C-alpha cells in the first residue's frame, strides 16, 4: 500500500505547508454552511409559526335561512370543492342565540325581549392549518360569499388577512435571500477552491511531468476536500446552534414561548447538510483539478 502511504504523506505535507489558504477555504465553507443552514432553519421555523398563528382561524358564513339536512350536505360539498378543510360545523339560529346569550353573561336579560331567531344561522369553516390554505383565506372567503343563500362571510379581523399577506411576502423574502446567498456561496467556494488549486498549479504540472499517475495527483486533493467539507460544515452547524440558543434565550420571556416553539434540525438533516458539503467540496476540487490534469 505504498500508494496510500505516499498519498497520506502528501496530504500531511500540504496541510502543513499551505495552511493559510486551507484555512481560508475552511472559513469559506463554514460561513457558507452557516448561512445556508440559517436560512433553512428560519424557513422551517417560519412554517411552524404560521401553523400556530392560524390556530384559531375560522370563517363564519352567515346564511339567509336555516339549511335543512339536504341543503347542508350540498353546502358541504360545495365548500369541499374549493379546498380540503379541517372542519365544517353548522350552527342553527337557536344555537347562535344560545352562544350570544352565553357571551353576554350577566347581561343576558337584555335579550329577554328578543325573538329566539333574531340571529342568523351560520356555517363555521376551519381551514387546514398550513401556510398554503392560510395564504388563500381571502380567495376562500370570496368563494364562500358567492355560495347560494350566503348573507355575508366573516373571518375574524382584517388582521388575519394582513397577517397572511405579510407571511406570504416574508416567505418570498426568505426564499429570495436564500437564493441570493446560495448563489454567493457556490460562487465563493468554487472561486476559493479554484484559486487554491491555481496557487499549486506549478506543483501539479511538475508532478505530471515527473510521471505521477492521475490518481496520485488527485487523491490528496480529494482527501483535503473531504476533510474540509466535514470540518467546515461541522463548524458552521455548531456556530448556528450557538446562535440558535442565543436567540432562544433572548426570547424566553413567558409571553412568547407559548406562541413560538423554535426547533433545531434533527439528526438526519444535520447529516444531510454535512454530506452535501463534503460532496460539493470534493466535486469542486475534482472539477477544478481536471482542467490541469488534462494539459
Amino acid at each position, binding site marked *: 500500500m*505504498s500508494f496510500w502511504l505516499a498519498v497520506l*504523506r502528501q496530504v500531511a505535507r500540504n496541510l502543513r505547508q499551505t495552511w493559510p489558504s486551507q484555512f481560508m477555504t475552511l472559513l469559506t465553507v463554514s460561513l457558507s454552511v452557516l448561512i445556508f443552514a440559517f436560512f433553512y432553519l428560519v424557513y422551517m421555523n417560519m412554517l411552524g409559526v404560521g401553523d400556530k398563528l392560524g390556530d384559531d382561524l375560522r370563517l363564519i358564513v352567515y346564511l339567509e335561512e336555516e339549511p335543512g339536512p339536504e341543503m347542508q350536505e350540498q353546502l358541504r360539498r360545495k365548500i369541499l370543492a374549493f379546498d380540503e378543510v379541517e372542519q365544517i360545523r353548522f350552527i342553527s339560529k337557536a344555537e347562535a342565540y344560545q352562544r350570544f346569550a352565553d357571551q353576554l353573561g350577566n347581561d343576558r336579560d337584555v335579550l329577554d325581549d328578543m325573538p329566539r331567531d333574531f340571529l342568523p344561522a351560520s356555517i363555521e369553516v376551519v381551514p387546514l392549518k398550513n401556510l398554503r390554505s392560510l395564504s388563500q383565506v381571502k380567495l376562500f372567503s370570496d368563494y364562500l360569499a358567492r355560495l347560494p343563500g350566503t348573507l355575508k362571510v366573516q373571518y375574524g379581523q382584517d388582521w388575519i388577512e394582513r397577517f397572511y399577506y405579510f407571511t406570504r411576502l416574508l416567505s418570498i423574502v426568505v426564499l429570495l435571500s436564500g437564493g441570493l446567498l446560495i448563489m454567493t456561496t457556490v460562487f465563493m467556494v468554487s472561486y476559493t477552491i479554484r484559486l487554491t488549486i491555481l496557487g499549486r498549479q*506549478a506543483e501539479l504540472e*511538475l508532478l505530471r*511531468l*515527473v*510521471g505521477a499517475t*492521475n490518481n496520485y495527483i488527485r487523491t490528496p486533493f480529494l482527501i483535503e476536500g473531504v476533510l474540509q467539507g466535514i470540518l467546515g460544515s461541522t463548524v458552521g452547524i455548531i456556530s448556528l446552534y450557538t446562535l440558535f440558543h442565543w436567540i432562544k434565550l433572548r426570547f424566553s420571556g413567558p409571553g412568547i414561548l407559548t406562541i413560538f416553539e423554535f426547533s433545531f434540525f434533527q439528526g438526519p438533516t444535520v447529516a444531510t447538510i454535512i454530506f452535501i458539503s463534503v460532496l460539493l467540496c470534493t466535486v469542486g476540487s475534482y472539477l477544478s483539478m481536471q482542467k490541469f490534469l488534462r494539459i
Partner: protein
Amino acid sequence: MSESNGAMIEMIKVSKIYQPDIRALSDVSVSIAQGEMFFLIGMSGAGKTTFLKLLCNMETPTNGLIEIAGRDIQKLRGKTLARMRQKIGVAYQDFKLLTDRTVAENIAISMEVSYKKPQHIKKRVRDLLDRLALADKHDAITGELSRGEQQRVALARAVANSPTLILVDEPTGNLDATTTRRVMDLLTKCNHSGATVIIATHDDSIYRDTQHRIMELRSGKLHLIREGLPQ
C-alpha cells in the same frame, strides 16, 4: 543493422509549428541509440528546447513520428504515459523547481512518484547533493538558492530516479568551470551505467573534445551531425 534494434529514440521527419506560424523545428529525422550520449547545439532560438520537449511529451509534434524505446509516444495515455515519464529524467532550462520546498523535497519528488522507499530516497538525495557540492543546502528553501545552485538541484532531480533516458537542457549556463566538471562527471557516470543522455548546450567547453555525436540545429533545421572525435 543492430542499431535500429537498440534505438532509444527514433525521430522521423518531425516538425513543430507554434501558433500562429513559428516554425521551431522542420523535418528533423534522427536516431539515437540506447546508452548513447548525444549533444545538441545551435544558436539561441534554434529549436533545441523544442526538440527535448517533444521527446518528453510536453509538446506534441505538428508532423512526424517519434518513437521512444520502440513505442509511438503520441499514442501513450494515462498510466502507460506516467510510467514512461518516470523512466525519463528531464533537467529543464527554466528548472521548474518548487521554490517554496526544500532542496531535499525537490529532489525526492521524482522518486516518490514511483513509490521508492523513504530510506532509499534519503540516501540517494544525500549522495547526489554530495556529488554536486550542495551538501550544506540539504534543508535550504530552493527559492533562496543562488541560480547556479538551483540549476544543480534541477539536474539532481532529473537523474535521481535512475531513468533510462536523461534530457538535459543547458545544464551549465550558470556554472563556473569547476562545477561544470562535476556536473559532466555525474552525467557521464549515468551514461556509463546505461542511460541514454541528451544534452542541449551552448557551452563549447563541454562538447569540444567529446567522442560522442553532436547534432547542430539551425533555425529549426538539422544542419549537421558530427561524429565525435576518436578518443
